[in-house]
């Protein structure tokens, strides 16, 4: 199944960085449980990898145990795998058994975000580029996602306008 496309380019969250590692090592640290557990979670959290099945349709189900003892669960469902060049997966917050759920702090965050991660060899190093956008989401959820990563450079238009629906819901 081809990857779902974003409704507009403005919805795509892009982040990229050059790492001092080969594409093969980058691939390993981004797809292997023993590596992911070492850097993936915020400081103070312990990452618990429940499953990591690297194949199309396979699931990476992980828990992040917070300092207070609460565990936030999340999962990726792999869509496309082309080692060591690119990886596409759908990210969701979920319950411990993998059922997608809303984030308690972000009730209008899209349930599913498609992420495409690419690795480019660059002078002995590797440029990692990650692009993500909501899929199967309502206009309101897409607006919240866009507002969540839009830069203040957009000033008072753009993302701000899109916050209206979200704020109305918060007050309602």
């Amino acid at each position, binding site marked *: 199944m081809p990857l779902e496309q974003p409704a507009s380019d403005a919805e795509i*969250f892009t*982040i990229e960085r050059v790492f001092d590692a080969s594409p093969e090592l980058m691939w390993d640290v981004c797809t292997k449980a023993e590596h992911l557990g070492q*850097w993936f979670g915020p400081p103070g959290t312990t990452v618990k990898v429940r499953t990591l099945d690297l194949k199309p349709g396979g699931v990476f189900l992980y828990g992040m145990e917070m300092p207070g003892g609460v565990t936030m669960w999340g999962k990726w469902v792999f869509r496309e795998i082309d080692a060591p060049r690119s990886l596409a997966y759908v990210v969701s917050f979920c319950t411990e058994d993998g059922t997608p759920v809303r984030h308690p702090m972000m009730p209008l965050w899209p349930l599913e975000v498609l992420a495409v991660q690419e690795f480019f060899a660059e002078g002995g190093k590797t440029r990692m580029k990650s692009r993500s956008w909501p899929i199967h989401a309502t206009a309101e959820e897409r607006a919240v996602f866009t507002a*969540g*990563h839009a830069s*203040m450079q957009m000033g*008072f238009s753009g993302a701000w306008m899109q*916050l209206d629906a979200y704020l109305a819901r918060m007050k309602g």
Partner: protein
Amino acid sequence: MPELHDSLSQTLTALADPTRRAILARLSHGEASVTELAEPFEMSLPAVSKHLKVLEKAGLISRSREAQWRPCKLETAPLQAVDVWLGDYRKMWEERLDRLDAYLKTLKPTGELN
């Protein structure tokens, strides 16, 4: 639903109105009086004053007590708080990539000179 932090909530509510955002956009070019701010809108002065009160309460504008015409001025501190709130997703990613970078350094074969 968990409540937003009070002052942030107040800022967001103030920003939720397009007229108030237009007022702020105008003030980003410099101070202005109530009459000047009312000009582009088909609104009475009391209606504009009402919006200004909301913005003032949210700390988004201040009004000079000095001059007779009491100019309004944009205050950016609450906007920075909103930026932090909105910027969390990018920040989360930036921090994650920082940790990845630090982790990769620990994987370097021993004896390698950097």
